[in-house]
């Protein structure tokens, strides 16, 4: 009898200890797969980023550091030589060596894999094994932002021998290993006892799949969750007032821009584009509609992105009278424009504010909302006028956004503004050809200045991302996005 009681007590204490070491968080949707090469979905990446590792990653300060890579150099502008950390293995025991890196990247590049994120690394031509821990990554043409692209979650190194099994039974080298996954319900990870960077203090991470934000908030407040992300402004305000919850709003990699088709006859005249820029009160949008959860934008990339020229000042302050004068000068009075957007509550609200602001300067704006795929088809048509987009510089390198939006080769895919300037093309290419940071910084600064002067788009704001957590969780790092939750040095003080 006594022995049974003791056994029960021990079991209870063990459960309690386990519960103390378990972090519970929520994601809004069931991840489609846990094979990072077979998806481009944030819910998948949130998990795969714990289980797998990339060669490089971006530090909280925005610099690039080696993760699986111990050291690296560009032996020539098209060849990146990487020396891997010694002795790393996947959790199945197989070595994560040069051959494994080659096999993983080749699987990602193979068209048969149908990797949705292949475009992130499409600059890579081939991968060659130099010795057991050294690989060369060759790009057909010089591609200076390569390190940042290799830091993207799709470029995680996977043990290819597991093939399609990775989708449901992921195996990586990361700080946490996969335990179980109940579809649409919950997913459990446990600390990797052999992790090369030191075993995490948190023993288990439970991801509960909770689609409704209100439910997540109630769960957080009733102790069912320890940390939640991406809380909308209304709910965030309420949580800020709750003393039992810690809240943070941080600048991520996003920017929201109003783009203008520079070859459309209505928008060809620079004065018209300047007038539209002067007509927009960015701080009103931020204060009234985003409850202060954004910073006003000037250049197209937020200050968190490498080579953002964040010191450049707003050339087009809110001046409705100047806007009217510019429109009159350009002979564009009674201007009627169409704004294309995709279904997204934030963008729809912003579009309505823009409609009001532009009407104040005599511009009649029609808003056309479509689902995302249909919107993309619309942007391919040359008669597009204005478009609103919320964009992420997910590599945190200026190239990702500036090249996509302003290089003439990206017309009409990403360069929806049809913005074609030879000097800008040359600067963007120079910054790709030359891995030296100083050269790149100077080139990108020039691009950002030219773009500000020419107004192919108005950067409205950089949204802030939100976190609410129980104070028991300490030491976690969120690098620019909730999908990069770094728990390696986090602790739970229950």
């Amino acid at each position, binding site marked *: 009898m006594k022995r049974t009681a003791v056994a029960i007590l021990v079991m209870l204490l063990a459960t309690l200890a386990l519960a103390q070491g378990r972090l519970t968080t929520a994601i809004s*949707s*069931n991840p*489609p*797969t846990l*094979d990072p090469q*077979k*998806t*481009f*979905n*944030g819910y998948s990446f949130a998990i795969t980023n714990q289980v797998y590792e990339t060669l490089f990653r971006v530090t909280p300060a925005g610099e690039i550091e080696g993760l699986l890579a111990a050291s690296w150099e560009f032996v020539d502008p098209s060849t990146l030589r990487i020396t891997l950390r010694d002795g790393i293995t996947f959790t199945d025991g197989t070595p994560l060596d040069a051959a494994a890196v080659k096999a993983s990247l080749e699987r990602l590049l193979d*068209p*048969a894999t*149908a990797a*949705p*994120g*292949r*475009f*992130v690394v*499409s600059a890579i031509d081939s991968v060659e094994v130099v010795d057991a821990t050294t690989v060369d990554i060759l790009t057909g043409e010089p591609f200076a932002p390569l390190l940042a692209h290799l830091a993207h979650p799709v470029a995680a190194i996977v043990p290819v021998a597991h093939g*399609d099994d990775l*989708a*449901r039974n992921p195996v990586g080298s990361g700080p946490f290993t996969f335990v179980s996954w*109940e*579809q*649409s*319900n*919950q997913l459990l990870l446990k600390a990797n006892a052999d992790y090369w960077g030191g075993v995490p203090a948190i023993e288990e991470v439970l991801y*509960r*799949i*909770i*689609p*409704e934000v*209100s*439910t997540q908030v*109630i*769960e957080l*407040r*009733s102790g*069912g969750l320890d940390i939640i992300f991406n809380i909308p402004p209304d709910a965030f305000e309420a949580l800020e007032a709750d003393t039992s919850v810690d809240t943070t709003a941080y600048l991520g990699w996003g920017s929201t821009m109003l783009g203008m088709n520079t070859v459309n006859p209505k928008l060809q005249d620079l004065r018209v584009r300047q007038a539209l820029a002067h007509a927009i009160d960015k701080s009103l949008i931020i204060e009234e509609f985003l409850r202060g959860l954004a910073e006003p934008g000037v250049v197209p990339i937020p200050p968190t992105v490498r080579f953002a020229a964040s010191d450049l000042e707003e050339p087009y302050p809110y001046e409705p009278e100047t806007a009217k004068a510019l429109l009159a000068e350009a002979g564009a009075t009674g201007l009627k424009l169409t704004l294309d957007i*995709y279904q*997204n509550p934030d963008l729809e609200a912003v579009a309505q504010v823009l409609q009001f602001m532009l009407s104040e300067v005599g511009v009649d704006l029609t808003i056309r909302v*479509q*689902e*995302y*795929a*249909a919107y*993309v*088809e619309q942007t391919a048509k040359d008669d597009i006028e204005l478009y609103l*987009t*919320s*964009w*992420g510089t*997910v590599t945190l390198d200026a190239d*990702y956004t500036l090249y*996509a939006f302003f290089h003439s080769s*990206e017309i009409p*895919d*990403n360069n929806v503004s049809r913005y074609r300037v030879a000097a800008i093309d040359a600067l963007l290419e120079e910054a790709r050809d030359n891995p030296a940071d100083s050269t790149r910084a100077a080139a990108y600064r020039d691009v950002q200045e030219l773009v500000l002067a020419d107004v192919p788009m108005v950067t409205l704001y950089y949204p802030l991302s939100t976190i609410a957590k129980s104070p028991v969780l300490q030491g976690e790092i969120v690098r620019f996005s909730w999908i990069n939750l770094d728990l390696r040095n986090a602790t739970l003080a229950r």
Partner: protein
Amino acid sequence: MTLFIIRRLAALVPVLLGVTLLVFAMLWLAPGDPVLALLGESAQGISRAALEELRRAHGFDRGPVIQYLDYLGGLVRGDLGTSVRSGQPVMQEVLGRFPATLLLAGSAMFVASVLGLTLGVLAAVFRRTVVDHVAVLIALLGVSVPVFWSGLLLMLLFALDLGWLPASGYGTWKHLVLPASAVGFSSAAFIARITRASMIETLRQDYVRTATAKGLGPGAVRLRHALRNALLPVVTVVGLQFGGLLGGAVLTETVFAWPGIGRMLVDAIATRDLPLVQGSVLFIAVLFIIVNLAVDVSYAVLNPKVRYD
């Protein structure tokens, strides 16, 4: 009876064929590219060439007729295909969610039947009294209050304030109480109204008066004689509601984070995961038809006058 069941099951084939054609046509005609829908807005920066390649890899570059016939070919061989988004067999995806759906539908119908029958019988027996009015009011609330609101209220009360039950999730009986009550309450409302109307109708019948005249007590008359005969339309409503719930209770599943079929289907539609949408709708259609058949068969059991030959 057996012949009736066989005939009804045979009718499944053309119905299901129609379902596949309809679903396929709807998804095909909806604007937008399936590959873009699959990637979502997070895939900004992708080039058109890369999109083309993905389209080919998933077979979206083939004509709609070929794609449809291909699908039917698989179906005949018992292959529901593979989800585009997850790469997993559709059958596995659907069956993986079914236990949660069945559990919620079953327990919600239990709550609904007990509550609905009780309210309905009380309202009919005490017609035009306070009892009747209160019962009708409760039923009206149940029909009118949306589950995403009542669900949150239940959570605030029982999870946050009282701390008796978990707010959301799936796993233990405690997780089941709130969603089953939320769904059960709104279904109970329909059942109560039908029961009331049917009971009032039955209580007027001659055989009820006869039963009372031969000296039976009011309880026996109402429950043994009247209620059994009044149940026929109620069974139809219960059956239809149960069939509907087996298709997933999307709002409830969303609010309570319940891992059922409804949420999966909505996600699949949003990402244009055609094989998964087709497979789930087919599965739901088969269940619905079977439940309906069961309702028809139960008529014969409840009322010996009903014959199916």
